[in-house]
Every structure is written in C-alpha cells, then in structure tokens.
C-alpha cells in the first residue's frame, strides 16, 4: 500500500531537519516508543507499544537510513515484525523550506502481511494516516516552540533537544495512541532517526490494528 502526503511546519528548514535527526524528539512525539538503539552504521532498531481503540500491541522495527542529502532529503528502508504480522517498506522524505516555513513531503510504499493484513485490512489506511498526522502534529508543536525562540543553525539542534525533554505531545484525540511518557534517555548519539521512526510507527500501526 501507499502512504504519501505533505505536512507544513511553521519552522525553517534547518530546524525541521535537526528535529528529524534528534532521537529525543522522536521518542517525545511518537506514540508508545519504548526503545531506540543503534545496531549498525545508519541502522536503528526500535520498539513501539501502540494502542488504538481496543487494539494494543508491541512491534519491533529495523530502520536503515540511506541517500542522505542534508538538509533536503533521505530514504528509509523499513523491516518490521510483530506477533500479528510483518511489513517491509521504503519511504522517501523531502523537505522544501521557504523562509519561516517548511513543507515535508513523504512518499512510502509498503507491503504488509500476516494476520493484521487479512483481519485489519479495512483500517490499515486510515490508521496509518491518523498516526502519521498525530506524530507530525506533535513534531510541529515542538519545532514551533524552537523556531519561535529564535535560535538558528547549530543552536537549533541544542534548542530542539532541550525542548524535547520537557515536551509533551498535544493530546490530539485523533485516536487512542498512547504517547510514551518517558523520553528515551540512552539514545544513539547519531541522528537521522525521526523520519524513519515516524514510518516505523506507521508500520506498527499496520501490524497492530484492524
């Protein structure tokens, strides 16, 4: 299936890129992010615990970042597995900044299999869209905070990290995904995960829901 769309951040491109690279931001805005580890060069493994309506489940995903073109675009390769099924996906993320705002375009192709694909087929699309929206809204709030504080460049990275620690994603009741309360503290020093994990969350959704 295809999951594609655009989202506009009210923040300059550099700030959005920095946010996309920061694992602390990621675990703040992604629902149920329990764990995030570097397992190889540009390779990450994460665990998500997601709840949507009555459905809840754990999902393990491996994400590889490639074709990095700072601060404009990157590609993600995702391989995910849970007790209810599996998914393989490729996602392209592109940023287009104009002054104080940035448009993020994402385009992914996913293959979903297993129990969730058969039982949950009718809700895969809307669940995926909803969780992507929720994550992006969370990130939007956070990048707005940073960009309104007026920091730029290298300072943006530190500002994003600081904002992320105290940040609580807005409880958009788009659906009952529970946002992780604790920020992942022992996270990889290496960036480049957020975009990937947004997609991972999306995949987790595929795996866990009707």
């Amino acid at each position, binding site marked *: 299936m295809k999951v594609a769309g655009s989202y506009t951040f009210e923040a300059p491109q550099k700030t959005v890129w920095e946010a996309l690279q920061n694992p602390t931001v990621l675990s703040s805005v992604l629902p149920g992010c329990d764990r995030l580890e570097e397992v190889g060069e540009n390779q990450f493994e994460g665990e998500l615990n997601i709840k949507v309506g009555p459905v809840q489940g754990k999902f393990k995903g491996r994400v590889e970042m490639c074709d990095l073109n700072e601060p404009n675009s990157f590609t993600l390769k995702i391989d995910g597995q849970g007790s*209810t099924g599996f998914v393989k996906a490729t996602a392209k993320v592109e940023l287009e900044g104009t002054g104080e705002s940035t448009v993020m375009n994402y385009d992914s192709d996913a293959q979903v299999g297993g129990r969730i694909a058969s039982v949950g087929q009718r809700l895969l699309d809307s669940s995926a869209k909803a969780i992507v929206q929720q994550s992006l809204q969370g990130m939007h709030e956070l990048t707005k905070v940073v960009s309104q504080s007026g920091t730029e460049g290298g300072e943006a990275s530190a500002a994003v990290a600081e904002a992320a620690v105290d940040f609580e994603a807005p409880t958009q009741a788009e659906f009952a995904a529970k946002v992780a309360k604790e920020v992942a503290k022992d996270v990889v020093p290496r960036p480049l995960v957020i975009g990937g994990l947004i997609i991972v969350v999306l995949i987790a959704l595929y795996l866990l829901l009707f």
Partner: protein
Amino acid sequence: MIPAQFDYHSPGSLEEALSLLEQLGDEAKILAGGHSLIPAMRFRLAMPENLVDINGLTDLDYIREADGWLAIGALTRESALEESQLVQDRYPLLADTAEVIADPLVRNLATVGGNLAHADPANDHPATMLAYGAEIAVQGPGGARTILIDEFFTGLFETSMAANEILTEIRIPEPGAGSGGAYLKVERKVGDYAISAAAVQLTMDGDTCTGIRIGLTNVSPSPIRATEAEKVLTGQVLNEELIEVAGQAASDQSDPSPDLRGSVEYKRDLTRVVTKRAIAKAVERAKGAAS
C-alpha cells in the same frame, strides 16, 4: 485463536461497574454485546487484562418516550429497536438503521451504547445519531454528564468519553410535524459493513426544507455530518437538481480510505448516490407524515 488470558468481573450495579473501572484503569474493557470486542480478542489484536461485563445492568435496557425525547438505555439490544412499535412508527431513520446492522445473531446481543462507544467509523448508529442531533448521557466517578452528538466522535475509535466513564443513555429529540428520515446503506453482502451509507433527518414545510441533518458512515476516519450538503438544502424548495447538488457536496466532503470494499473514487461516488436517495426517501416520508 482464543483470547489471551484475562480476569472477568460481573458487577451488579452501575456504581460497582464504575468503581471497577477506576480500580482497574487502563487494563479494563467494558463488555456489553461483545461483538466488536470479542472478535478482536480472539485474534489477539486486543488483549485487555480485565473484562467488566455490564450485561447484568438490566436497568439500562429500555426504550421510552418522555418530555419530548426518545430515551434509549445504553444496554438496549439492536433487535429490541427492530421489535419496538414505537421506533418503527415514529423514528423511521432509527428503524432503518437497526435493520442493517450486521445480522440477526449479532443484533440479538449488540447494544446501541456499544455501537456508539466503540466509535468504529464503519458502525451505523453514529451517522444516524448525528442526523438526529442526539445527546449522549454518560456516567463517571464524578457524576453524570451529557455530551452533544456533534462533540462525541473525536477520531478513529475515539470519543470524548473519559476512560473511566460508562455510556448510560442515548436521547433523540422527538420529531416534529413534517419531519422524515431515512438510512440508506450499500453493502457487498448482507450483514457487512457499509461501503457507504447516509442517514438523513429533515423537516419539510410543503416543498421547502426547513431543517436537515445528514450523517455519513464509513467514508471518513470518524463519523461526519455532511454539513456542506445540509447548507445546500436548508431553507430551499427541494427538487431533483438541488438534491443532486447536495449529493455531490456530500461526496466532496467525504474522505474515504481505499480498501477491500472499494477505491476512493468508487466510495465517493457511492456517497453521492446514497445521500441523494436517502434525502429523497426522507422527503417522501416527511410529506407522508404531514398529510
């Protein structure tokens, strides 16, 4: 598969049920008819650690008209709506809806409260309650409160009820003179979820539509009112061309996801058609009621 292990509780009163919910928190789910929850549990897609079975709260099973409202207890079974002469005679939109929810076996157990609280976009009652402008009564540890239907559905499987609240009653305003309603659902086979469905409740004064509310089923992440279509028709003399415009407006406002039931284009166009036909049927019934 069989469900994962869980603890089972069977409270004898609403207070007991509420206190159980408070105690058990996140790990508890209410069990009423069970025909959305138990299939999810059997596939182990839902694994609540506790089930709070409220089927013992028989006080919540009633259909009665009073003070200008039709009050339906949350535990009322769908089949009771089908069997109620009051509903069949005076609430045709509700009667239409009850008939097409799943199949008779499900309807014997499924409850109106459950259909709304579960907030599956594919459920039928949400659109109908939106069309009626219903009110939802819920009870929580802090007491009772009423939620207007326009504020009830907040997202995919999400309502504005708190996790420790129980839906107790649904109230539908008594229809006035010259009112009519209809629910039109297209499904692949009997008992299926809708590919698209429209619920219409309106009032007519001669050929003029004085008020109209339209709810749509399964063409958006959460149930919506076709407000643009409503605007096209409110206060206007109704004719075929205007109803076609309203149908198109409903189609444009819908946001269906592609799936095994159809593509986005197909569902959108089907929405146009079911909306048109439901409006026409509601008008016919309104004129019949007025004469």
